[in-house]
């Protein structure tokens, strides 16, 4: 019973905080561009408006893909510890989270390509390629952390940082993970997959109304999973509230960075990730092996 | 008695010269007769022709090795004679003469006699190889054979000078170091042509691939076997294994070179003839380890090889572009080629194991490597040919019409031989016994000498 309540708490946090922060980030970008910007609750309106419309569907795989995407991400989110709010204590293995996350991605990709539009296929191909770029340095830097603390459980990784934050102990790994995080979020230098002006917003090209709304929810939850993992692993011990503060800080930082950068081409993304962050991640792993941890 | 083995075929050949069209149908009976005759003969019997005792007269020696060699060779002749389709009408006489000379070659205990029989065999082989208008190949063979014969004769002369005798047993008893320096080289060159040693085997592809089924079927099996027997007899029994280290190296070179050449052949018969060369080289290098085990392994392998080659050559020469109409033939072909490669379940596997075991026993690690390497190449081309014949690319319908079915007797004999291959794969005892007897006869030169020269 407690598990159900905790899961519900995690999901509701994801929903409210996630959508709020997305609105906040739009506001921040507007302010950087010297605009007034939409209200902070704009994304709630957008989601529910989208859900209220009468959309079109391209058949069962289109629907199923969306459901699988949202279901997979909800399942993933349930395993992410939000500070001391852990839905499944002991079972929050990092690999599980990372790979369960792929269910959502696969579902989305499948549903979108199932629409039959080549733009979405191109977008998905780009998204997968980008994943090949950012996932490797991210996993290496996180693996170095796991190797150092001898555990793969995210909450234990968080609790192991009693003396100081992992980010300070392994600064290179932290930087690599943050750069990879930008790629995961699809933030500006790495928003190649959904490039609206090139491929008509890529995977989402055929999404309308309800489907768009569900996908926006999925996107919100994914952001929560991605940043949540980073906060748990790198930013020290936190309870529920400090977790949300740290989360907000990271999210705003990512927004600030992305709002001033142009877009990479897809092969530039891969080249970049496999040169700089991967090299740094290896360096970090070497330091960990040698015991050079601050 | 054993003289009959030489005399009867010769006699019948001469008697039937006027009736040479009918002689085809007598062949099986002649072959059967000599087979029965051999089986009746007691082993360890020396026949002094004209009553002259050993060092002075001509002797025909029937010991373990020659007895079993005779059996093998005569079975081959018998099987071939049951396939009259492949024997062209003029060649029946040659067939008989070849039979006589090979029987003589195996039986003889005299170096000069062996030269004579060698020459008769060669001449018969020249004529055989000129069938299907393959005159150029036959000419090549003739030139090489003649040179080889000259060297063989030279070797015979030198050994007479060196030991004062022409009797093999006598030479074996009296050899000395001075003599050993020259004679093995000359004899080796003399035999190298017939035993297909690199680089003197240039005639083989041209002759075997003439398109006639009989030529390769008899040259690669019966004649090769008798030559290998003679080689073993001379180099192991007479020269006590002297000079074999050189043979070993030549054998290995032959294996590699022949397999490499076979890889690129686009004619099945040529590819098979290169395989035949390679197997001969392998055999020579195996027996040049000069022990009872290695000889057993070598002759066992040779038996497997000639069994397989018998099937392969006959089918390769008589089949067209595919097995579409001749499935049973195709099965026999495949079985033979698997045996050649040495897949388990088939005879070739057993001999390969035996060779490997012997080689390792002699601390010889080069031979297994070469053997396995050569087998890989052999697998490549033999199996490629199998696939090509089983799954022909684009056979035109009229071509399909043209390929005729092989007649039942050919198929039956080929299937029986193929079955023998499988049986040997499971129970190699028959072949192994033959090989062991030949090996023991060859290695035990003291017994040979006593046997021929009497208790001295």
């Amino acid at each position, binding site marked *: 019973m407690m598990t159900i309540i905790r899961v519900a708490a995690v999901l509701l946090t994801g929903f409210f905080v996630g959508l709020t922060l997305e609105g906040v980030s739009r506001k921040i970008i507007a302010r950087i*561009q010297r605009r007034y910007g939409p209200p902070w609750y704009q994304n709630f309106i957008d989601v529910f*408006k989208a859900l209220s419309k009468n959309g079109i569907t391209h058949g069962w795989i289109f629907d199923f893909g969306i459901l699988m995407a949202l279901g997979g991400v909800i399942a993933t989110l349930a395993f992410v510890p939000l500070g001391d709010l852990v839905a499944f204590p002991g079972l929050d293995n990092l690999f599980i989270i990372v790979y369960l996350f792929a269910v959502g991605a696969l579902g989305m990709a499948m549903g979108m390509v199932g629409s039959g539009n080549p733009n979405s296929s191109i977008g998905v191909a780009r998204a997968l390629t980008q994943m090949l770029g950012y996932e490797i340095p991210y996993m290496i830097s996180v693996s170095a952390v796991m190797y150092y603390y001898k555990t793969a459980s995210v909450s234990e990784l968080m609790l192991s940082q009693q003396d100081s934050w992992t980010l300070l102990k392994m600064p290179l790994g932290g930087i690599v993970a943050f750069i990879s995080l930008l790629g995961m979020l699809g933030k500006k230098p790495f928003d190649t997959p959904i490039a609206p002006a090139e491929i008509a917003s890529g995977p989402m090209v055929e999404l*309308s109304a309800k489907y768009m709304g569900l996908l926006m929810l999925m996107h919100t939850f994914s952001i929560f999973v991605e940043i949540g993992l980073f906060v748990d692993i790198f930013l020290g011990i936190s309870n529920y509230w400090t977790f949300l503060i740290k989360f907000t800080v990271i999210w705003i930082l990512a927004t600030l960075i992305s709002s001033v950068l142009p877009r990479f081409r897809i092969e530039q993304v891969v080249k970049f990730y496999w040169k700089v962050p991967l090299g740094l991640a290896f360096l970090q792993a070497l330091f960990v092996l040698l015991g050079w941890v601050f | 008695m054993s003289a009959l083995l030489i005399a009867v075929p010769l006699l019948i050949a001469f008697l039937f010269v006027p009736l040479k069209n009918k002689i085809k149908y007598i062949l099986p009976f002649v072959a059967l007769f000599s087979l029965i005759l051999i089986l009746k003969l007691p082993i360890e019997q020396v026949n002094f022709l004209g009553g002259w005792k050993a060092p002075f007269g001509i002797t025909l020696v029937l010991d373990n090795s020659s007895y079993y060699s005779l059996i093998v060779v005569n079975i081959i002749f018998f099987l071939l004679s049951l396939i009259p389709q492949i024997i062209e009408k003029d060649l029946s006489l040659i067939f008989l003469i070849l039979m006589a000379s090979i029987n003589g070659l195996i039986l003889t205990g005299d170096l000069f006699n062996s030269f004579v029989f060698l020459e008769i065999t060669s001449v018969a082989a020249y004529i055989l190889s000129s069938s299907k208008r393959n005159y150029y190949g036959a000419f090549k063979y003739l030139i090489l054979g003649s040179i080889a014969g000259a060297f063989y004769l030279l070797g015979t002369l030198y050994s007479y000078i060196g030991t004062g005798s022409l009797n093999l047993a006598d030479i074996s008893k009296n050899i000395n170091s001075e003599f050993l320096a020259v004679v093995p080289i000359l004899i080796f060159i003399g035999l190298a042509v017939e035993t297909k040693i690199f680089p003197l085997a240039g005639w083989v592809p041209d002759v075997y691939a003439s398109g006639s089924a009989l030529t390769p079927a008899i040259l690669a099996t019966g004649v090769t076997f008798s030559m290998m027997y003679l080689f073993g007899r001379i180099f192991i029994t007479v020269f006590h294994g002297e000079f074999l280290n050189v043979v070993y190296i030549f054998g290995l070179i032959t294996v590699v070179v022949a397999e490499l050449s076979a890889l690129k052949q686009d004619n099945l018969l040529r590819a098979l003839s290169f395989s035949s060369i390679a197997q001969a080289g392998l055999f020579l290098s195996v027996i040049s380890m000069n022990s009872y085990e290695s000889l057993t392994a070598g002759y066992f392998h040779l038996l497997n090889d000639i069994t397989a080659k018998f099937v392969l050559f006959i089918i390769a020469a008589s089949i067209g572009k595919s097995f579409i109409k001749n499935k049973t033939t195709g099965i026999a072909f495949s079985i033979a080629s698997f045996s050649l490669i040495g897949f388990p379940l088939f005879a070739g596997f057993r001999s390969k194991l035996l060779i490997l075991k012997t080689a390792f026993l002699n601390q010889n690690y080069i031979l297994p490597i070469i053997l396995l390497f050569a087998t890989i190449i052999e697998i490549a081309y033999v199996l490629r040919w199998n696939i090509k014949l089983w799954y022909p690319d684009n056979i035109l319908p009229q071509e399909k019409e043209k390929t005729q079915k092989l007649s039942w007797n050919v198929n039956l004999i080929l299937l029986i031989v193929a079955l023998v291959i499988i049986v040997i794969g499971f129970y190699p005892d028959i072949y192994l016994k033959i090989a062991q007897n030949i090996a023991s006869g060859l290695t035990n030169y003291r017994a040979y000498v006593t046997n021929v020269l009497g208790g001295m």
Partner: protein
Amino acid sequence: MANHERNIWEKIADQLRSKSLWMLHYCTGCGAIELPPSMTSRFDMERFGMGPMATPRQADILFITGYLSAKTLRRVIYTYEQMPEPKYVIGFGSCTLNGGIYYDSYATINRLDYYIPVDLYIAGCMPRPEALLEAFNELMKMIRKGEANGWKQYKENYDWYKNNQIRSLGEVLVHDEFHE
């Protein structure tokens, strides 16, 4: 105009819709030049929750700036029919209203609302961004009141619109790249 009563859910939905208008702009004429200032920092369209969208599937507003030739009209209709309901059309500038300076051209149409239902016209050649924002605010009001019902009208009078379209564009009998 048949203005049937909305239920409570539809009223809430209309409130939401008016606060979050996503726009597909069909920029064939010179009017498109007025959009960048409306979107960027001077006038900042996003503060009303509006934004450009890449595909008709996600758009609420079809925003047509300028004249429509027979060839582009066909595409506009195609695009309009691909949009999910509810959907709104804004005609921008005189060209959509009465043909503007192209009123006697053989190649353009003069009145857009013969062919698709236009919820709101912005007069002028060309209207300034202020007029644009005014129009958007007006449209939002209409949506909140449930008056922006062009899409229902299109459904109800589908035959009429279709006839007009066919009269202007001609019926397409052969479906290939040379005839449509």
